[in-house]
């Protein structure tokens, strides 16, 4: 519609001549950096091409190009995919390349590359934000200095009359540490069942451990924490390896949780245990302070339904699920919640005992509000 029409015939003919000009532009332009490499490569390719062109053997092309290792070929392929506008990372370590080369199917390769690309993107944007914040901060300090030369931070500044010295994070840590120790002695146990290593992929296991880290964090900050038990934690298993890696060996040793190889059924009387699983036929109506609740430490990205229910059935434990359908207008998503959501719900229940408050931690995208709220609105 807003395309200008050609004015004269002369211009048109001139234009026709122009049509292939890009070819010469591209031909005479040789990539500066790769010039030497390219020359060598080209010769090789031609050799290979000649061999393969013979009808006798389509396999002949490989002979000339043996120097290029499969890993290098993969790297080049990734570079070209990036140029073609696909979602692949800009840089890859040799380790990541190795993982990529080991993957069997094309789709798994694509998925892995996409994962790396997204991770790279997050890292990059995080770095950018950090730099921006740093710049802002230094600007603010400059401003402060301009307004009040030798202001708050200055050595010569007037000492202020304060009630406390600055409340450092370390003081809080100490306080929370005391509380956790108290919970270790007198708190209600909460068990995380770590027996699902076989059922999870590497990614899922990593996600599980991330969630466990959050679980411990939320628990530590609660006014009345649980006494966390990591049961079935095998000494040479993936869970422990990943946990030690994430916490660091020292912090892991100092962590105020009970981690044990023993099963939960060996630690607690069977009648006290309640296995929380979304597949359970029973609904948890009230939170019982005398029970020991068990949560399966598992992330399930594939479809293995009923794993934790099967485990509970095997050990003949009581099971229960959260009363999600009774309180929430469920819309989308699975009823299984992440481990950190579970502990926040349980902590709130323990402290206040009200489902409405506890279920605030169910992700909002999964439901369309509480049932009670509706009549009030209308």
């Amino acid at each position, binding site marked *: 519609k*807003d395309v200008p029409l050609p004015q004269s015939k002369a211009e048109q003919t001139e234009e026709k001549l122009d*049509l292939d000009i*890009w070819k010469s532009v*591209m031909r005479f332009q040789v990539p500066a950096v790769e010039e030497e490499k390219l020359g060598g490569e080209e010769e090789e390719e031609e050799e290979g091409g000649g061999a393969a*062109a013979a009808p006798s053997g389509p396999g002949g092309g490989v002979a000339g190009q043996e120097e290029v290792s499969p890993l290098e070929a993969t790297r080049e392929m990734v570079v070209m995919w990036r*140029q073609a506008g696909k979602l692949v990372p800009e840089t890859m370590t040799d380790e990541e390349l190795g993982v990529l080369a080991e993957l069997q199917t094309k789709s798994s390769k694509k998925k892995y590359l996409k994962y790396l690309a997204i991770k790279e993107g997050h890292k990059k944007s995080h770095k950018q934000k950090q730099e921006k914040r740093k710049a802002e901060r230094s600007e603010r300090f400059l401003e402060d200095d301009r307004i009040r030369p030798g202001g708050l931070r200055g050595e010569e500044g007037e000492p202020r009359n304060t009630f406390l010295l600055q409340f450092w994070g370390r003081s809080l840590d100490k306080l929370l540490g005391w509380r956790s120790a108290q919970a270790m002695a007198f708190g209600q146990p909460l068990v995380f069942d770590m027996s699902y290593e076989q059922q999870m992929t590497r990614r899922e296991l990593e996600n599980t451990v991330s969630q466990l880290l959050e679980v411990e964090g939320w628990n530590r900050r609660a006014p009345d924490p649980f006494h966390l038990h990591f049961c079935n934690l095998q000494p040479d298993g993936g869970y422990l390896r990943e946990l030690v890696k994430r916490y660091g060996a020292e912090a892991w040793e100092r962590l105020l949780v009970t981690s044990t190889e023993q099963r939960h059924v060996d630690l607690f009387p069977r009648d006290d245990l309640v296995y929380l699983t979304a597949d359970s036929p029973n609904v948890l109506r009230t939170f019982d302070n005398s029970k020991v609740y068990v949560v399966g430490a598992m992330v399930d990205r594939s479809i293995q339904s009923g794993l934790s229910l099967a485990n509970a059935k095997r050990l003949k434990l009581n099971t229960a699920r959260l009363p999600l359908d009774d309180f929430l207008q469920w819309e989308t998503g699975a009823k299984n919640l992440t481990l950190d959501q579970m502990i926040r719900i349980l902590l709130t229940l323990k402290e206040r005992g009200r489902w409405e408050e506890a279920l605030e931690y169910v992700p909002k995208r999964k439901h369309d509000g509480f049932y009670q709220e509706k009549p009030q609105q209308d």
Partner: protein
Amino acid sequence: MSFLLILKTRICLKYISPLFNPSTAAFTPLNNVISKLSVSARLLCTKGVSRHAGNNRKEDRQREFNIRERLPFPKSVFAAGTAKRTAEYQKKRAEEEPDFPRKNKRVEPPDHPLTATEWKSLKLTSPNPDRFDVRMMSSMLADGTDINVAKSLLAYVAMDTGTLSYELLLRYLTLCVGSGHHSEVFDMYDIMRSRFRTLDTGASSLFIKGFSRTERWKEALTILENIKRAITPSPRNYGDTIAGAVLHGDGATAWALYAELMEKGLIPNQETWQALFQCGLSHQGHEDGLQSILLHMRDNQIYPEETLAEDIKAWFESLPEQKWIGSWSTADPRGVCRSCQAELESIQLSREEYAQLKDRVMGDVIQGRDVFNKTTPEELESFKNFVKRKPAFDVVIDGLNVANIGIKGNQSQTLLEVVSELERQGLVILLLARKHMQRPSRSWDRHDMSLVQQKAHCFFTDNISEDDPFLLYAALHSGNHCNFVSRDLMRDHKACLPDGATRRLFFKWQRGHQLVLSSYTPGKRVRFQRILSYDTIVQTNGGSWHIPYDENGAERCTYEVPQKWLCLTKAK
């Protein structure tokens, strides 16, 4: 079994069997068949009706319902197109929501080549100048714009920025290959090879496709080799190369590539097979290869599409010295080809197949990796004992599934009706149900349930156990004559089986033994959908081939089978 079959067919085909009797095949009036076909096609075609929807939509819908109701026999749930029809029907019933048109953010390509200044102004006036060139090229691709317009864009970008991005070139290449500008593809090849160290899979695939149509088709082989260095080529890459070889009369290369493709465990495209059959049409030989393709289809339960079926027919008819006659046919409900009156293969499993399936269902579906997933060991044991104690059943009923066909709150009565109907036929019945059904409630009447228990053997599983695996086991345990009643398509249980071959066995058994109750109205007689007696699969007996195929445009779900057949018989 299949090995034996291969041997047999090979022998039969090599030495034309004098015993072969084409029966009445040649004399069946073809017109009759065709007219029947077209009638049934018109009856079944809901798509055509819904196509010219518009101002009188309601009327159309009405008419469609009438057509549906007038169908003399309900189609089997496994017949091709049933799922699609059901989906369309339900979509029609659901309230029609106006679908909002997506925001049109694409740029409109011009209809003639522009000069650099014109491009520049167009770029400046476009709402989003970011990546203008690539987006413009994409929309040209979508519209199938003339290649010169694209060239003028490239010229402008090259002059403007001094270079062209790989992405832009790739899209241009797609345009060239799509519109068949071969010389342009050659130029692009030279440029891209000199400009970039390697090519990505997208460009390589395009070059393979472009080259294989020209006299430089052999270079496609080189490109294929290059792809192999980093990744397994796709079936389409192989298919294009094979098509190139066939097009230039190099059958040996085509077959070598096909062997490589199969060796890598890839699934060939229908176009690849089509190319090979066309190759066989123009060059003699390769008969064994082509027949092995047909047997591959048989083993993997693949059905050719209509175009491929036409090529298969043409190839058979072109064979010298053997006078093959191909015709388009359907099967009648008794399992007889309407064209040649030959009997089609039975749907019943052979003894070994049956034993294998039984083991698999027990091992993988019920026990799986963990018995506790679906049941408990105690329950499984008691069920096994129960089955052992009882006589072999003739029919196994999935109680909950059957009961829920009827009106809500009336479940036990529906169940009673179905059980009574089967009892009237003098069958030994097993009813699988859950324990909660024994407790009297509004939907489970005590009187009804006690009557049911008089008429049938009953097994009540725990409320949290799955009943379908028990159903499958009981039916398989009772023997080949035992059917089961359920509307469930059992896709989740089929998915538990470890490999494709066993899944196909399961599907075959399911088609032969599942009684489906399509609808139920209280007071009327209970009717089941007919079980077909023949297997829908590529089959031969040496003297003839019967090949089911997918019609053009008919969409078939994975659990459905085609209804049309290609019948090939040898004339005397």
